């Protein structure tokens, strides 16, 4: 009896030891460093350098983190945004030639100047000089305005040809309009860096179609990135209850929402009984149940060699980051990381190859992920 007890005890201790070694091994891969605390719903992140980071707060301020310190003063000259529902000061991107022209682009929701009950998505650019944004000009304004404060999209990325892609969400209550070309709901928009319309946009010659449209049939697109050689555009969007999607965006394509979807409505109702149709693109990955994808980066850094070539997608629910391994444009694996930090609003690659996370909260944080060495 005593021997049996000893054997069982040894077995249990061995199991714990093995688990400890396994857990320790995984802990050793990376560690977290808090760069800034007390940010009000941090949303978008852009790097002036590895140690100088711009962060948009959804409540309307553009903050600067310099050498690990959150500067007290925010950037002046940023237009007022509408902080309501899912709206606020959101997307941020630097011009590819920022070193020389100092252009910074911001996407945010704002009240319609002609009707205070309506609002819309607006994108501006301005010159960032020290802590001031000057020469602010509108690059894009979604049309028509909406009465809902949901589903703005508001993410941006520059393509290698110098044009800018902007995600414009379906406004929640206007989902059917994502299938029509006479509006900006549920679209990826493409403009030149000054807001003019590129001549090779796909619907530019179609009467009644908005000439800025690059692709359509989207829902709430909160992640858009290009791969390291700029040849592939990845986009993710929130589904309703289930049906979050990761797509490859191509010129003029229809991504199906809401005619085809893997999700259902929050009420439980079918949005569509159809999941595929000829002429409508399929996602390269979808999630049921939803993970609420909120930001994305294509990792091409050197600090984590095993992660090179992966997509990282931040998820609000349950609060983690998904590392998507790719073989070409095919998804081959998904790994769940950083699931102890709460709602993660964004994930971006820093110039030094670390990953930087925005933790979504009234007192949000910016966290850097570095190798644990």
């Amino acid at each position, binding site marked *: 009896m005593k021997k049996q007890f000893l054997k069982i005890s040894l077995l249990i201790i061995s199991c714990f030891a093995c688990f400890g070694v396994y857990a320790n091994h995984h802990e050793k891969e990376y560690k977290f460093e808090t760069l800034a605390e007390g940010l009000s719903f941090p949303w978008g992140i852009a790097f002036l350098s590895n140690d100088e980071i711009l962060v948009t707060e959804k409540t309307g301020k553009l903050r600067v983190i310099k050498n690990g310190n959150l500067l007290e003063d925010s950037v002046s000259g940023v237009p007022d945004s509408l902080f309501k529902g899912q709206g606020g000061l959101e997307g941020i991107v630097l011009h590819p030639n920022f070193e020389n022209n100092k252009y910074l682009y911001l996407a945010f929701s704002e009240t319609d100047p002609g009707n205070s009950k309506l609002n819309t998505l607006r994108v501006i650019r301005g010159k960032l000089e020290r802590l001031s944004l000057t020469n602010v000009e509108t690059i894009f304004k979604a049309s028509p305005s909406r009465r809902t404060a*949901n589903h703005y999209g508001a993410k941006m990325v520059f393509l290698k040809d110098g044009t800018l892609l902007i995600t414009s969400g379906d406004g*929640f209550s206007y989902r059917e309009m994502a299938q029509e070309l006479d509006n900006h709901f549920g679209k990826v928009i493409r403009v030149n860096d000054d807001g003019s319309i590129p001549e090779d946009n796909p619907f530019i010659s179609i009467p009644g179609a908005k000439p800025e449209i690059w692709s359509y049939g989207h829902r709430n697109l909160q992640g858009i990135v290009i791969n390291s050689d700029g040849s592939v555009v990845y986009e993710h969007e929130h589904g309703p209850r289930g049906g979050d999607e990761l797509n490859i965006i191509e010129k003029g394509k229809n991504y199906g929402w809401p*005619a085809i979807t893997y999700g259902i409505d*929050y009420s*439980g109702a*079918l949005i*569509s009984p159809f999941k595929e149709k000829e002429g409508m693109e399929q996602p390269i990955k979808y999630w049921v149940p939803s993970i609420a994808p909120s930001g994305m980066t294509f990792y091409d850094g050197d600090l984590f060699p095993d992660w090179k070539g992966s997509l990282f997608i931040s998820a609000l629910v349950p609060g983690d980051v998904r590392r998507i391994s790719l073989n070409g444009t095919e998804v081959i694996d998904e790994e769940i990381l950083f699931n102890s930090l709460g709602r993660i609003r964004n994930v971006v690659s820093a110039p030094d190859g670390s990953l930087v996370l925005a933790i979504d909260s009234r007192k949000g944080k910016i966290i850097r992920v570095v190798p644990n060495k």
Partner: protein
Amino acid sequence: MIDRVKKVGFLFLAILLVSFLVGAQTTVFNLIWLSSVDMPVTFGVLISSIYHDFVLMTLTPAPPAPLPLLPTIISLGLFIAFGVTWIILKWTGIEKKYAYGIAGAMALVFIVYLMPLLFFGVDMLAGARSTIGKISLIICGYLGGHFFGSRLSKV
């Protein structure tokens, strides 16, 4: 005692009826739009969609809520509207089926117009986004109230 049980049963059936009609309205409105963009909507798709929506909207909890969303909201609306009607009927001689019919309609008026105020302008019932959708939902409320009132008259 039996009459009281019957009344509660009729109330439950009225809630179920309105929930079913509201769900079916959402389904039909969705399918009309899908058909308009050349999706292959057949009679079979219609029947299976109505069944799906009835089961998921009326009988299945909608996470994170622990209860089915639609019948919970409709119950709340009908309880208040029928309660007020019960008081009014003590002093007036309106036929119950019409009085409760109007009460059911009023409950849906509040649901379709007040819900967007709580959700930043969002209509949680997709079928309530257009004026014709709102009117048809209010008619669903009337039918549920009418059913309840007419059953009460026979107790």
